């Protein structure tokens, strides 16, 4: 069993869901982010959040994959002040919905004053709602941006054991681990991190508080990154227990602190969920045809 704790499934196809379920991915976490281009008004942001909490969760369930969300205002769109103000108003109503496991992904992009302002406001919101946090670290000026993110998180009295710093690499891992945060690695083919480098990091630093994810989205990315990384780690001699921690158990431990995600969700779902929202994992339950595939073409 695997968990992919960072996957923008809204951009992925049904083939991806089928392949993920077949490879043993039992749950995904979809962090709210931009969608490749900036939204221009709060209405489209609202619909986006409703979409990842609604139709996307339903779609995942049809393939036997449990779907969770992080809710937040991303750093890129935080630079549109009018939009950002309006989004901040609607966030609490979304963040308290079922299946929301964190505030995220939030943090810095260009490290502007507006990004800083809304990052801080959302850290306060996470503390108030007692939710974990997923941090996006910037692509440019990453090391300083990551360091600054952690300073601000601690300044706002958010417990690092409830915060995942994502898109970590060799340059940032030590500080993230030393300061008590969880370190997530986006195994993303042409940038960020590769499975080989990930395996080397697990060998150097151990599996504690390390998390692999795919960050699959609308770019060239691989929704099977987590199971592939697990295989590569196993082949390179990393213990089964450490592989389990990095590709399953650590993500469950930190995002489970929300109270909104537990192993029972996929191993023994509530009858009400079993009837309506979740068709059961084909790997776990053996050979069920997903409901979308057999029903009419209403989905188009």
């Amino acid at each position, binding site marked *: 069993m695997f968990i992919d704790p960072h996957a923008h499934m809204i951009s992925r196809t049904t083939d991806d869901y089928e392949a993920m379920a077949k490879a043993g991915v039992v749950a995904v976490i979809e962090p709210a982010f931009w969608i490749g281009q900036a939204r221009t008004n709060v209405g489209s942001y*609202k619909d986006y*959040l*409703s979409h990842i*909490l*609604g*139709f996307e*969760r*339903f779609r995942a369930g049809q393939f036997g994959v449990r779907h969770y969300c992080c809710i937040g205002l991303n750093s890129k769109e935080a630079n549109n002040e009018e939009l950002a103000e309006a989004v901040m108003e*609607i966030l*609490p*109503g*979304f963040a*308290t*919905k*079922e*299946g929301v496991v964190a505030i995220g992904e939030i943090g810095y992009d260009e490290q502007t004053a507006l990004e800083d302002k809304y990052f801080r406001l959302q850290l306060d919101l996470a503390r108030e709602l007692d939710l974990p946090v997923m941090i996006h670290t910037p692509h440019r000026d990453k090391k300083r941006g990551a360091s600054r993110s952690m300073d601000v998180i601690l300044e706002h009295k958010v417990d690092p054991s409830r915060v995942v710093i994502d898109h970590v690499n060799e340059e940032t891992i030590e500080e993230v681990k030393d300061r008590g945060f969880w370190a997530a690695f986006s195994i993303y083919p042409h940038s960020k991190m590769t499975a080989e480098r990930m395996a080397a990091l697990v060998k150097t630093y151990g599996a504690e508080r390390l998390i692999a994810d795919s960050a699959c989205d609308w770019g060239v990315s691989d929704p099977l990154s987590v199971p592939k990384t697990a295989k590569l780690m196993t082949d390179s001699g990393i213990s089964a227990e450490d592989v389990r921690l990095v590709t399953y158990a650590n993500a469950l431990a930190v995002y489970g602190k929300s*109270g*909104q995600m537990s192993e029972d969700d996929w191993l023994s779902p*509530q*009858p*009400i*969920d079993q*009837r*309506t*929202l979740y068709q059961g994992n084909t790997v776990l339950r053996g050979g069920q045809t997903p*409901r979308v595939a*057999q*029903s*009419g073409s*209403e*989905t188009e």
Partner: protein
Amino acid sequence: MTTSLSSTAKADTSMQLLKAWLAPRLTPDAAAWLDSQIAAIASGEKPMQLAIAVGLAPRKVGKVDLALTAEEVDAGRAARADIDATGWSVDQAARILLVLASHRGDDDRFVTALDRILATAEIGEQIALLRGLPLYPAPERIVHRAAEGVRSAMQPIFEAVAHRNPYPREQFSEAQWNQMVVKTLFIESRLWPIQGLDARRNPDLARMLIDYAAERRAAGRSISPELWRCVAPFAGEAEVATLADRLRSGTEAERAGAALALKDCSLPSARAALATAPDLAEAVDAGRLSWNQIA
């Protein structure tokens, strides 16, 4: 728009019923939380209160099946004709109760609250709030919400309106009703849990279903035996011939469906066809075979 006394009474009756159903299933903490939220929503002080309470409901009251006793089912039907809470969970009943708390004797306020909350509801919230349709006051003013649920691409949301729910039969126009029934077959859901299926049969629906059956046949796809239930009273010789064929050489379910449909059809040829399968004809006559059994 004025709010009639009967509308307020309906909201109260619904709330009393849900409270009675929930009471033996809630811990003291959960019950206290629910009471405090109802009071806060009714006070109308914080506009976000309803959305947050509806969002938090499952983690506060739990998600186990409501699983009503026979007495509780009877009490439900006495309070609201044809209410069917089969398959409801505790959190769903609580969510319906919370949205009802926003009525406070004012239909406008209720309709606005329901619109606002459904606009941003996640999938579980939508299912719960649509299952609550028969319990809401001002039913004629929320038809658009029910119709929106029927348009959903998410089958459990569609079924929250269509199945085990007296609301569509009571409020949908013929066009809305027909869309719902045809879509039920189109998404390969089941017809039999729809309330009022026989009472609301109509010639236009029968025509749409006959066309749909022809389309399925042309595509080499099977046709649900349930389809003929809404066609039967309006069937012509061509449909009777199809049913006679299914009765002869169909699957067990198709044969049963054909027998039930032929029984409902007044053409002499239908009676003759049914006579060729005396075992099924007898089971239909004796009430041992019904539409609920073939699905």
